[in-house]
């Protein structure tokens, strides 16, 4: 199977879905670029080149550069979705959600409910998230827990290029508003990605490692870091089941609970801040629904309750690392039985 980068996988999903359905349109700042200037057109293809080549292919009526004003164009995407288009809108960095959040969480997310089931709002909001780029406090956040909190939104976090193509394809075909989180540190990472279109269903977790000792649930880029930790631990004789839920909303609670029933131990790895996070969400799920199986305290590995620092030295310490995950797993193993815990 051909190797493609996360960036290419996303681009390919956009191309294929736009070819399949002409109601799919794209909009965002500089997603093509050069608009109104005398120089190159399609000069940017998005700040990180993800949407390059799409305007030349589909024309300016389907690939729209916007002005720098997210309330209006994200809201326009919601209005367009409710009236017959299937917009994919790029918000660039998820950190910018604060300027247009109302249009997402009070408008797009609630139309269907408020209107008694009579609205369909098939829009996708694509956003870069995550730390590691030395982009500092306002360009490095995760924030998916806040979107997960909101009923009416779906939230997808592809952990690699294969997932990115399949989940974005599903997001575009989905009739509900989908928040699509692309980790900026993954764009250059490659994986085997089929040429033909495929959709990965939402709410079906991917078990990337199977093991006996500990269940590790991780999100987005952290799936890979957790996988590395699992591989390293396996050498030391501790085997982990690593679960990538793929979507935080809907959440595949079944797979998570089943694997915890098997292993009896849980570590959750979440790059977001700890409070009201996916880490605590999964902990709550398991402490309520698989309590009887738990042999040890649940361990949560998250970023600290602090904004993302700029300095590389601090940012490296900020992000959950292989080492911290290994420690958490070992720690969970240290409580080998309930008796030991008491």
């Amino acid at each position, binding site marked *: 199977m051909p190797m493609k980068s996360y960036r290419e996988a996303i681009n390919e999903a956009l191309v294929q879905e736009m070819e399949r359905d002409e109601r799919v349109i794209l909009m965002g700042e500089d997603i093509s670029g050069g608009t109104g200037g005398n120089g190159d057109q399609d000069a940017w293809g998005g700040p990180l080149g993800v949407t390059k080549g799409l305007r030349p292919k589909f024309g300016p009526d389907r690939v729209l550069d916007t002005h720098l004003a997210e309330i209006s164009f994200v809201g326009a995407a919601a209005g367009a979705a409710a*009236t017959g288009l299937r917009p994919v809108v790029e918000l660039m960095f998820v950190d910018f959600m604060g300027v247009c959040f109302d249009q997402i969480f009070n408008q797009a997310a609630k139309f269907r409910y408020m209107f008694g089931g009579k609205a369909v709002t098939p829009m996708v909001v694509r956003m870069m998230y995550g730390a590691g780029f030395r982009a500092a406090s306002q360009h490095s956040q995760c924030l998916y827990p806040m979107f997960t909190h909101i009923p009416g939104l779906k939230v997808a976090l592809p952990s690699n290029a294969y997932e990115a193509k399949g989940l974005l394809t599903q997001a575009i075909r*989905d009739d509900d508003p989908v928040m699509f989180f692309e980790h900026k540190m993954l764009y250059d990472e490659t994986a085997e990605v089929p040429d033909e279109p495929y959709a990965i269903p939402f709410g079906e977790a991917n078990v990337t490692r199977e093991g006996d000792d500990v269940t590790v649930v991780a999100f987005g880029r952290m799936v890979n870091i957790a996988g590395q930790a699992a591989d390293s631990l396996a050498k030391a004789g501790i085997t982990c089941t690593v679960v990538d839920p793929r979507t935080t909303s809907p959440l595949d609670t079944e797979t998570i609970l089943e694997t915890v029933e098997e292993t009896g131990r849980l570590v959750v790895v979440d790059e977001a801040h700890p409070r009201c996070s996916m880490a605590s969400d999964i902990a709550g799920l398991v402490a309520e629904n698989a309590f009887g199986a738990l042999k040890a305290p649940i361990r949560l590995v998250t970023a600290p309750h602090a904004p993302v620092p700029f300095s590389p030295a601090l940012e490296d310490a900020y992000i959950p690392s292989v080492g911290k995950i290994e420690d958490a797993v070992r720690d969970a193993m240290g409580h080998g039985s309930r008796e030991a815990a008491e």
Partner: protein
Amino acid sequence: MVSGLQLSREDLTQAYRRMRRIRVFENALHAEFAAGEIPGFVHLYAGEEASGVGVCMHLDDRDAIASTHRGHGHCIAKGVETGPMMMEIFGREGGICGGKGGSMHIADLSRGMLGANGIVGAGGPLACGAALTAKTLGTGGVGVAFYGDGASNQGSILESYNLAKIWNLPMVFVCEDNGFAESTASSWSVGGSQIDRGKGFGIPSREVNGNDFFEVFNTAGEAIERARAGEGPTLLHMRLARYYGHFEGDAMTYKTAEEQATEKANDPLDFFRGRVIETQLLRQTDLDAVDAEIDAEIAEALAAAKAAPMPPTDQLTTDVYVSY
């Protein structure tokens, strides 16, 4: 384009019918709210009828409007049925939103009514989206955003002006300036002027006597014609008044008795009646017939709403997603 005074008898009767329907609907709610029959927040459109109806007389199902917290009038003007609306406002099963939305969220997408909105200014971007759909799919439709003087200061509305301009969207911005946002006067809260703002974004902008159905009809007609012809957005600044408080329960002490009297003296329905009779376009009996028809319609809607059951609680978690 036909001017308002060139409208057929049927069309004039229809315009009056919609205005009258709004007025009677709102008056009924005013009474019911005072009697403690209606839950929640209710914002009435009485007094502003000429604006919603004068604009929507030009629209059909290709076209979409985005409304506000004060949305009943826009719904009725756009052809949404009063029966299911009334049930919704009473929170009943059979309400147009199944009882889930209430007064502030009445919508009927099948009629191009994108929803009342609890968030001031939120409709501006949504209407731009509807205009984008119309433009992209080539339907010939237009998007119309109704919003108040208070909303005219919101980033959402101001950004929408620019988006509509630079994307050359088939849009009409209708600023319904009733002089107040809650209790705050627009003469204080709006720096500059609505039409200078519009022009500042490159949008043709007109000030309109919002009590005069004919002036509204004519300026809106031109704006919508421009939009359909691909000539982009227009802004209309309607000067008008709301008769009741900001929401039901508001004592309106921020308006003097004199101001309230002046407002009542400029009643858009009185104005319309006077005009069509004076010009002999309609007869008093035509108008009386409409009045009787509407009184019966709203009385029936009210009785049906009061008789309807509450939605069963198993509806609590339905309609959150198409699939989940």
